[in-house]
């Protein structure tokens, strides 16, 4: 088994090496004479205003939070999924099913709560704007 992970390690090294080697060889033959104009950031051809590290929307954090919760949940679901077939064949299927169902239902409650609180709405304002235009 450890030998299999040695394969993974080798692949990682070769993957990095592939990019590094190509970049190195390319650096030997490509031109390299940067100047002021070339180094400006692309801002649709205008001179860039302010740095590029601007603020961005809070919604991305919200998505990341919900993702982390579900990703951990899935990581816990995989072991049960793998042995489920054996459990069914040895007659313990119902037990495994009830256990994983309880686990998922607890998380689904959280999911439904997030949904009901509008945590999953990407564009909160679009709908209200749409309703406003409908009224007038």
């Amino acid at each position, binding site marked *: 088994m450890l030998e299999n992970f040695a394969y993974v390690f080798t692949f990682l090294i070769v993957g990095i090496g592939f990019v590094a080697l190509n970049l190195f060889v390319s650096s030997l033959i490509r031109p390299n004479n940067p100047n002021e104009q070339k180094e400006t*950031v692309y801002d649709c051809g205008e001179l860039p205003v302010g740095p*590029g590290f601007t603020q961005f929307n809070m919604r991305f954090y919200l998505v990341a939070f919900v993702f982390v919760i579900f990703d951990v949940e899935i990581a816990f679901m995989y072991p049960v999924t793998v042995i489920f077939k054996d459990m069914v064949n040895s007659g313990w299927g119902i037990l495994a099913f009830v256990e994983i169902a309880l686990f998922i239902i607890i998380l689904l409650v959280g999911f439904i709560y997030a949904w009901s609180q509008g945590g999953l709405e990407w564009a909160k304002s679009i709908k209200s704007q749409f309703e406003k235009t409908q009224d007038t």
Partner: protein
Amino acid sequence: MEAFAVSLGVHIYLVKAIIMFIIAALSVTFMAVISGLTTWFERRIAGRMQSRIGPNRVGPQGLLQFVADAVKLFMKEDLIPKGADRLLFKMSPYLCMIGVFAPFVVLPWGMGIIAADLNVGVLYLISITALVVVGTLMAGWGSNNKWSLLGGMRSAAQIVSYEIPVAMGLLPSILFAGSLSMIGLMNAQGWAPWQWSAFQNPFTMIAFLIFFTGSLAEGNRVPFDLPEAESELVSGFNTEYSGFRFAVYFLAEWANLYVIGALTTAVFLGGGNLPEALQPYWYLSIFLFLLKTFFIMFVIIWLRWTLPRFRIDQLMDLSWKYLLPLSFIAFFGQAVYMLIDHQFPVIDMVTGPIMFLIFLLVLLKFFYRVAINFREQNKTVNTRA
């Protein structure tokens, strides 16, 4: 192998390490070539679909176009914009590359032909592809460009959102096979379409569709290509990249297409399983596996040039409000199905063929519809002339 090592007077691990290295080098070459060929393939198909020719100058039918492109990008100047975070900017291509290349360890090439059959195969695959998210975020943040930042954030939000349907979509199939290793998943299926895990029962079918949709989004393919929506974000997270660093992103994108195709084939479409009579001809299984993979890749490319792009809120809604609940239904459905199946094994014999029959009917309906469209189009053309 051990005797061979001893006869040469070297340690066994050295021989093993060299073999591993050779396999990895072959894989990386295969990945580079296949992703190059896919760019050609895609451009030709796009040409056909838009009534133009596409690249046909370099080599027979333009087949060597990707070599010309690669050489061009290889010799381009590599610029790093002023004020960029140089470390993140330089690290990002490596991460994107690893995120796409590392899955090749567990991708099978046919029945029992695989670099390393990890016992956590699928889990390893979906977790290591997540490195691409880190890479795009780094590229977006490190570029000191507003378009890149927006593109990177969008890309991260999208890939992260669709990671969950993809992982959930794989679960019913794993329930069915009872294994995480790729070979185990393939062995659980048979050669005939009604033995494939996609056509086992309605729930695996739902899971297959969820997985496929999610994979499209994870691979940044249309209709989910918001991270590089040219009309909105210039080029997304890779706006500031040039030269070979830029090429790496596109290499990764098209290699990802192959990864998606191979994973779908191995997990849902029977892999390289051959009928009993053809078992001795192992090379046929490689051929079959690649054929299925390329078909999936063709479908993805076909979708790209057929469908318009989603809006970002529609994209998020689709993932969280439709695919995620559906995938829970598929998971529970498959679990209950297996419990019932244990009591009454007869169902297993029936559902597979029925699902496949339904699939054939849908296919027939599709071709019928296409034929009608063709006829109507020809009619209008004739009347105009």
